[in-house]
């Protein structure tokens, strides 16, 4: 390591300075002000004393637990389904020789589609007069829209989960494809020459090699869907609401005191998303160490 001898060293910090300004001032500032406002420090309305009142109020509301559970449920379910679908589809694409490029394009074509459009699309697809309901009617499964299950604006968040699965399958899948591309066929060929069957090659060779990449993409998808606002705001039921929607509702409430509660909810969202990442880093470090041994 000869980094200290690098003549460009002062320039390194110059190159990093604008980026660090964004991270510290805008990102760090946002978190900092969310935190102190959650403790009730709101000079705008004459409150300058720190207290935990907002947290107590938020945690005592019966709607909070329902919201927390719904948000966790939506984020977990959609991430697990999307990961399974993404891995399956990526393996199938990799095994295909003809039309692989077209398949990968279709696979990732919804990647740049905004979640808001995804939510609109899901409403037109899954609602009781949506395309699926019309198909069900065409096949004689239902006679009128009321017989089709309620899949959007529903309390179980099916529409929201469907939207996240649609988007996250592409996101995780593209990562898996890149990881598979980087792994190459050599390890599997070696395992094959040693007599491993299909299942053994997948279970003992491919899966451990791709797991870190898959896990990283899944955790990012989980953290995103835990803190996202658009799809549940458009597709969610009026009760229970996911935490970000609850926070926004408290934030825009006429009662200015509700602002501290909104900030407390923001802090809780940040803590849960952060905890997911920390847990992932912990697991991946242990995993990497075991690999090294």
């Amino acid at each position, binding site marked *: 390591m000869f980094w200290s001898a690098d003549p460009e060293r002062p320039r390194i910090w110059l190159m990093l300075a604008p980026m660090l300004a964004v991270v510290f001032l805008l*990102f760090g500032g946002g978190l900092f002000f969310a935190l102190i406002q959650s403790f009730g420090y709101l000079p705008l309305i004459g409150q300058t004393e720190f207290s935990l009142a907002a947290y107590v109020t938020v945690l005592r509301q019966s709607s909070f637990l329902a919201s927390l559970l719904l948000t966790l449920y939506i984020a977990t379910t959609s991430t697990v389904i999307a990961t399974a679908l993404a891995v399956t589809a990526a393996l199938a694409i990799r095994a295909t020789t003809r039309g692989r490029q077209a*398949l990968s394009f279709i696979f990732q074509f919804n990647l740049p589609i905004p979640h808001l459009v995804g939510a*609109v699309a899901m409403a037109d697809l899954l609602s009781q007069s949506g*395309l699926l309901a019309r198909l069900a009617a065409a096949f004689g499964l239902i006679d009128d829209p009321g017989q089709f299950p309620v899949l959007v604006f529903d309390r179980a968040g099916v529409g929201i989960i469907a939207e996240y699965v649609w988007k996250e399958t*592409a996101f995780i899948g593209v990562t898996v494809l890149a990881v598979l591309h980087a792994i190459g066929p050599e390890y599997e060929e070696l395992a094959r020459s040693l007599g491993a069957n299909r299942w053994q090659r997948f279970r003992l060779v491919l899966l451990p090699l791709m797991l870190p990449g898959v896990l990283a993409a899944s955790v990012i998808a989980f953290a995103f869907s835990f803190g996202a606002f658009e799809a549940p705001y458009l597709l969610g039921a009026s009760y229970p609401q996911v935490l970000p929607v609850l926070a926004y509702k408290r934030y825009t409430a006429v009662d200015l005191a509700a602002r501290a509660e909104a900030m407390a909810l923001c802090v809780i969202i940040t803590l849960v998303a*952060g905890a997911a990442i920390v847990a992932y880093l912990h697991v991946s470090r242990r995993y990497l160490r075991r690999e090294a041994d």
Partner: protein
Amino acid sequence: MRSAESSAGLSPPRPPLLRWFVLAAMVIGMLLPIVPLVIWSFAFRWSFPDLLPERWSLRAWRYLAAPESQVLPALRDSLLLAGAVTLLATLIGAPAGRALGMYRFRGRALIEMLILAPLIVPAFAVSLGIQIVFIRYGLADTFLGVVLVHLVPATPYMALVMAGVFANFDRQYEDLARTLGARPLQVWRWVTLPAVLPGLVVGALFVFLISWSQYALTLIIGGGRLVTLPMLLFAFARSGDHAVTAALSLVFIAPAVVLLALIARFLGAAPAAGGIRGL
């Protein structure tokens, strides 16, 4: 089983028939949600249980072009906003990417964590927190304020993409150009820029899309004053006009899909995320 034998090492643990089923399901699953949007945008009346509209019409598309729909000004504002964010995020993120990708220095791992954090912590929470400061400095409800808050998710993306690009860039080319008498600007223009340009373009396209798709941050910091396409789309979606909402959705995703095709071209056959290390 013939194809499985011929592509020995490449085949996953499943027979080809199952693979075709998986691929067909994937293609249908990916494309199906877009189908109702396309149909609705050309529908005049489309009542249950018809699979296709009784009457087709260009009403929704004409309405989007008409002044009263506000779509054209929103389109202009969305383009200006995403353009400004892309320019600033490139100027801020690319040098940081160079520092991270090309040099080993003390505290590098920490800096990398700091830059990753805004991509992981929900930007929604950050923007609610910072709004109070933006009010104090007159940035709330302004174009500049929205640009600044869009930089929070945009710049780290650019920095990480460019860190990946610069990690594969050999500094000796620059040294060589310098020994041959090139001035710093010439080195940058004729050596560095051509080498990193594909990565830079991909990063810029991604950053453009991040800003272009943003709804929550624009809503919170723009306070409804800055009407971008997503703001308009949300209003139409709530109004219940399926045809106009669908047409506007297609206008909203068109640049995104075009940009993705461009990214795919720039990266060749490799999937888009191949250019993004660590994401």
